[in-house]
């Protein structure tokens, strides 16, 4: 066996071993990113979608005559139904919309159905003999909402070989609790396409 051939035979396993070692010792790094940057890691519902929907819907709602003309209308947030095929925390969408509107100071929010148990539990707790009667809240003082906010999120997903296309549509509606009229409604559409290769 020639020296050159022997070197080549020795070189290949050595290279493979070095690669395996390098892969095993690959250094993991963690860095902080921009929480408000455009996130395109995967095709699934992500932070940018959540932020865009919340901002777009909250700003649109600020233009609604019921909000513009009203004197700090009281709104309660109901469910945004997830009609997509993936798991989406729709509560995060309504929480973000509520936070944006609340900060803007144009709308007040009444306790919603999901927070009702905690609210009544706290009232009951304050009725307890251990609390000062004069400082405790009384039953029957809660204020009902004039409007309720509800909506849907739907998606259409299409896959062809190396292409995956996702279309999201969020529809929100603001209903007048007293007369059942739809006071405002808007939609936000998002399309994301991933191509492989």
């Amino acid at each position: 066996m020639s020296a050159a051939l022997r070197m080549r035979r020795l070189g290949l396993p050595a290279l493979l071993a070095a690669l395996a070692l390098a892969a095993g010792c690959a250094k993991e790094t963690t860095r902080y990113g921009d929480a408000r940057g455009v996130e395109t890691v995967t095709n699934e519902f992500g932070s940018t979608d959540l932020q865009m929907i919340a901002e777009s819907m909250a700003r649109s709602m600020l233009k609604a005559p019921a909000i513009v003309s009203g004197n700090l209308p009281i709104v309660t947030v109901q469910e945004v139904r997830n009609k997509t095929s993936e798991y989406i925390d729709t509560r995060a969408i309504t929480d973000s919309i509520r936070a944006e509107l609340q900060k803007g100071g144009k709308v007040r929010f009444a306790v919603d159905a999901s927070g009702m148990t905690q609210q009544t539990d706290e009232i009951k707790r304050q009725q307890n003999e251990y609390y000062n009667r004069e400082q405790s809240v009384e039953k029957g003082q809660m204020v009902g909402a004039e409007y309720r906010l509800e909506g849907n999120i739907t998606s259409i997903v299409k896959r062809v070989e190396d292409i995956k296309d996702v279309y999201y549509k969020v529809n929100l509606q603001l209903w007048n609790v007293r007369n059942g009229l739809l006071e405002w409604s808007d939609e936000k559409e998002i399309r994301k396409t991933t191509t492989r290769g």
Partner: protein
Amino acid sequence: MKHASIVAVALASALAAGCASKKGFEQPGYAYGCPIGDAKVASMDDLVKLKVVMEGSRTTVVPTEMRCSRSGDLIRIDANLNNDSRSVKRIAYKFRWIDREGMRAWEEEAWKPLLIYNNANHLINTVAPTEKAADFRLILRSQE
């Protein structure tokens, strides 16, 4: 001499009156409905230069027109973005809201991705999140 100065003053007044009635500049401190403060804005290009900021990778997409109005006590903005290139452009944008003292009136908005077809316009519109927002900047960056 006195006669000449009277004529000059009259001319200047007529010129000023002419400028004041120019469309888009009816209200002092505003151009096309948008707040401009003490800045000198004589055209739509000046307004765009004043209000648009590029951050990060620069994009060739530029606003060609920008108009403001009010919805109650909130500023409403329409901005027409133009892509005059022969390729589709992907950009991201956000608005920055400024109060009367020049401080931020609202937290930094999320970047919003946008696709604009070749040789096409795209209208973006928004409304201020709070009545404290007295001025704004449109921030653009390339997403290519």
